[in-house]
């Protein structure tokens, strides 16, 4: 019976998050401002995707992440 947990969890992945309620109150203007900031961050990240313009890299102080498991 415990194995039925798997299909239930699989099904839940396709349930839209918007169907669920939010807990706690957060001003909607802050949510909108954060979304805008995130888009700005994405724009910057895409612009300098390979950190070519990074001042740290120019100064030789930039540590290149390892490919793959960069956190190890």
């Amino acid at each position, binding site marked *: *019976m*415990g*194995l*039925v*947990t*798997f299909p*239930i*969890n*699989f099904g*839940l*992945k396709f*349930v839209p*998050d*918007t*169907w*669920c*309620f*939010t*807990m*706690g109150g*957060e*001003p909607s203007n*802050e*949510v909108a401002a*954060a*979304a805008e*900031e*995130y888009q700005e*961050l994405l724009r910057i990240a895409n612009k300098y995707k390979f950190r070519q313009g990074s001042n740290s890299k120019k100064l030789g102080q930039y540590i290149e992440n390892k490919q793959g*498991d*960069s*956190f*190890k």
Partner: protein
Amino acid sequence: MDSLASLALATELPVDELLHRPPYRKREYIISRKMVKHIAGQSIFQALVLFFFVFVGPSVIKEDQNMPAPYTNIKNGEYILSGMLNDFDLEPLYSKYKHITPSRHLSIIFNMFVWMQIFNMLCARKINDEINFLEGIHTNAMFIAVLIFIIGLQVFVMTAYHYETKISLAFSTHKLGLTEG
């Protein structure tokens, strides 16, 4: 078990995809909609399953015929004896037998609950609705070790029993087979 599961999940290594996640807002609530979805979904599912087997179990769970009386259902021998101490009219139900052996019915319910938690722990490795929740599991030896320990402990609790009394050596559970959960 919950502590071990928390420990196992806390040892998950960070992945590069985390850097693509939007930053948390300063007043963002700690429980997101996605968490609510999974917590509520699993809770409702598990509650329904457990309530079903607690109340309807004595009509659908077959009794272990290899077990001699009084360790088996001495009432009709086919379906399991309800583990509820009294029925809704407060007439004694399992209370007459509880001094002989722990309820096999409630032992199955307990085993079922723990196995649902174990499998849900595996699903909880991925929190952004990724389909493959086993991705990268081989890189986390601690998670695998804790998982094996929890499963081993549960199997021991439910299957290791005193030969004469048929009572589990750990906790007061009835001896069960590996598929009864």
